[in-house]
């Protein structure tokens, strides 16, 4: 009770501080008062402290199951394990928005501490923009999704958390993703501030680069966690479904990756200033649109979220307010770049980075239009269509091929100007060699699609060429390892797609299925009682050609609160393949549907993404 009050008032104090800070800063800009930086530190710390108190008040309410709080009542239950009581704090709309706010205030505090070498005016302008965003979120939380609403009379028991969210990966997936989103807000504010205070130069690029890499690492890791979760929890054996909610997290990733590359051009040559700012604005706008699309309930997705038009309207207005402000600021402060020093030679690192940005923008446009087009079409014509995996694959794969080639060639070019007479011809021979190898591989693998064959060639080319760079050149270790990781990612996705096998059958206990030389035997069913669910555990024995036996035990869980059935897959991984089994109870019969999948090179999809993140991490450490 008391804690909810404290939490609520802390939020209000935090909001007041935001208003105060904005007024204080404007008074400074117009010369009425002279700001003392120490005061700013204190105010920022105080604001962080208030949000911190509020957030941990909510965590505490979840831990002690205080059902007088409606958020706790709606999303928790006394029999839930402590870990999920805590993670349940941000497993719901209200709590997750409070987490956003916490990260926002934390990041601006950190930004202010770590930007001491930057001009004072630029730092204060960044603070204004960031405080505007923070104010927006404070108002959003307080007006539309207050996590501290009271219920009276106090219920004895809560409604419980959706069981598919009771999972370790999903406990940390949202916070990491939010860290990424909020990181992009810092980049956004800093870019606008740099534009306004005419501070876009090499030093600024070096300073903002840290934030770009940090954000990129967090965003990539957040997306990876979501994908891993979908793989083992949703129980379909896929890792990316082109579901709108997944796409929404991918969109800012494209612009951020483009920004990650183009910031180097700004750092080295002090060109592409406007473009860098545009990418910064786009990244944050896309992060916000993601939040809007997910939270407004516009999307029809497997991931269900509470649907409240009021929230959607608020975020939408706020989002477009920020976009319009950005456009207007851009209009008045845009720097003119038409000087003689900004020439770009066609065969240079600059061009290759422009090509990277070009493709990233294209990938973004595919995902963006695919995700939003059904929504827009419905408003305009009242007709509903679905845009799913085939659309994305048809448009993305053909463009991935040249992209991979450029990715192999680009890093070897020099800044300003490369001499094409000095090109290493070994790499071209390498290409022919790969084609030659492919010719035999194709016959062996029984690949039918020409596109896939060329795609394999191009990714093998990137694979070998970045591997050679990684081992022999070591000029740019972090970049080499990230590009190498990307080639492994594409290769494992392709081979996973081509070589995976599966069978789905309706069988009884005691039945056997013969699948691809393996014998799958449905031995028995056990029932177990756990803390907050009952479990039906099926025992499958898989005997391969060498008579080696593996036991797999997928489960069906019947959660008590809320009363929901979930299928838990059982997965045995090794470096070569994942054995993935899941079963479900068919209605009204003693027959079970069993789906057994052999997913080749599955683990490499995760490993390669970790390699990519590792590359980013090394660079981040090096910057300092």
């Amino acid at each position, binding site marked *: 009770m008391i804690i909810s009050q404290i939490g609520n008032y802390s939020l209000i104090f935090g909001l007041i501080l935001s208003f105060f800070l904005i007024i204080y800063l404007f008074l400074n800009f117009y010369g009425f008062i002279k700001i003392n930086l120490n005061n700013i530190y204190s105010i920022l710390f105080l604001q962080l402290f208030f949000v911190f108190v509020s957030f941990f008040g909510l965590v505490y309410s979840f831990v002690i199951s205080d059902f007088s709080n409606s958020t706790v009542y709606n999303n928790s239950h006394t029999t839930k394990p402590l870990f999920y009581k805590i993670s349940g704090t941000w497993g719901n709309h209200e709590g997750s928005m409070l987490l956003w706010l916490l990260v926002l205030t934390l990041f601006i505090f950190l930004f202010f501490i770590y930007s001491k070498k930057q001009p004072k005016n630029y730092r204060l302008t960044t603070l204004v923009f960031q405080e505007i965003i923070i104010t927006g979120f404070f108002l959003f939380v307080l007006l539309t999704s207050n996590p501290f609403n009271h219920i009276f009379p106090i219920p004895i028991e809560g409604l419980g958390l959706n069981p598919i969210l009771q999972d370790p990966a999903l406990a940390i997936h949202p916070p990491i993703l939010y860290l990424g989103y909020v990181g992009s807000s810092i980049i956004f504010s800093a870019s606008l501030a740099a534009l306004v205070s005419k501070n876009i130069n090499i030093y600024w690029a070096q300073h903002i680069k840290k934030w770009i890499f940090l954000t990129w690492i967090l965003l990539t890791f957040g997306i990876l966690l979501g994908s891993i979760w979908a793989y083992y929890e949703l129980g379909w054996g896929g890792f990316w479904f082109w579901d709108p909610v997944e796409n929404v997290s991918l969109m800012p990733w494209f612009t951020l990756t483009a920004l990650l590359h183009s910031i180097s051009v700004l750092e080295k040559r002090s060109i592409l200033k406007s473009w860098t700012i545009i990418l910064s604005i786009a990244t944050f706008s896309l992060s916000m649109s993601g939040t*809007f699309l997910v939270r*407004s*309930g*516009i*999307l*029809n997705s497997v991931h269900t979220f509470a*649907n409240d*038009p009021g929230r*959607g*309207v608020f975020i*939408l207005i706020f989002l*477009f307010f920020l*976009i*319009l402000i950005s*456009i207007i600021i851009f*209009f008045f402060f845009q720097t003119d770049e038409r000087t003689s020093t900004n020439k770009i030679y066609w065969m240079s690192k600059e061009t290759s980075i422009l090509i990277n940005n070009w493709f990233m923008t294209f990938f973004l446009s595919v995902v963006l239009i695919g995700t939003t087009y059904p*929504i*827009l079409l*419905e*408003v*305009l014509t009242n007709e*509903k269509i679905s845009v799913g995996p085939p659309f994305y694959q048809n448009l993305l794969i053909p463009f991935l091929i040249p992209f991979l080639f450029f990715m192999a060639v680009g890093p070897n070019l020099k800044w300003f100007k490369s001499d094409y007479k000095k090109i290493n011809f070994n790499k071209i021979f390498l290409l022919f060699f790969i084609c030659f190898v492919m010719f035999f591989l194709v016959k062996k693998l029984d690949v039918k699609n020409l596109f896939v064959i060329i795609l394999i060639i191009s990714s093998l080319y990137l694979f070998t060429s970045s591997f050679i760079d990684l081992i022999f050149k070591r000029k740019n270790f972090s970049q080499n390892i990230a590009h190498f990781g990307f080639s492994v990612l594409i290769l494992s996705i392709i081979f996973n797609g081509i070589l995976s096998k599966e069978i789905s059958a309706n069988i009884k206990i005691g039945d056997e299925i013969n699948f691809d030389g393996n014998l799958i035997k449905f031995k028995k069913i056990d029932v177990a009682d756990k803390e907050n669910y009952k479990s039906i555990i099926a025992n499958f024995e898989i005997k391969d050609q060498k008579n080696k036996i593996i036991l797999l035990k997928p489960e069906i869980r019947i959660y008590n609160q809320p009363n929901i059935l979930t299928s838990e897959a059982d997965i045995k991984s090794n470096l070569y393949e994942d054995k993935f089994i899941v079963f479900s109870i068919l*209605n*009204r019969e003693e027959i079970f549907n069993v789906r057994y999948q052999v997913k080749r090179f599955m683990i490499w999809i995760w490993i390669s993404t970790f390699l990519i993140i590792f590359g980013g991490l090394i660079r981040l450490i090096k910057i300092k």
Partner: protein
Amino acid sequence: MKKNIYYFILILVTLIVFTLLYKAIFKSNSYIPSLAINKKINNFSAYSLFSNKEINIEVLSKEKKITIINIWSSWCLPCRNEHKYLMKLKQHKNIYLIGLNYKDNPSKAREFIDDFGNPFFEILSDPKGIIAIDIGAYGVPETYIIDNELNIIKKFIGELNSNDYDKIVDIANR
């Protein structure tokens, strides 16, 4: 000047997208197919639940002004709830009710009819649910009103209520 026009277009596009998204917030995000209205259903034959004879829907509905096809199952709870309306509809002489037993165990289906009464003139079995798809249904219960040329006059998705009952009677009396 040229620059100003670009910015003007940009702001215009932003505002249009805003308006469209704003409108989208208030639309339902789930999909209910509404296409089948005024469409024809394909002729089909199926085995009768009780007599095990193969029966053709065109033959069944031929001489009738309207035929009502009700898709039901013994395991479906809403079907139990709407059953009383079907029993009431049976009393109208203009109404000719046919049941399509969807993915059911035949003995349980017969038990259901024994327990709750039989409103249907004929019950056809659809053990695999394929006929239901052919009609354009996707779940149970669904109710279709068709004329003697198999044109769909109206369809009801989900449990029938007293309002739907009145509508059906209204159509039958026309």
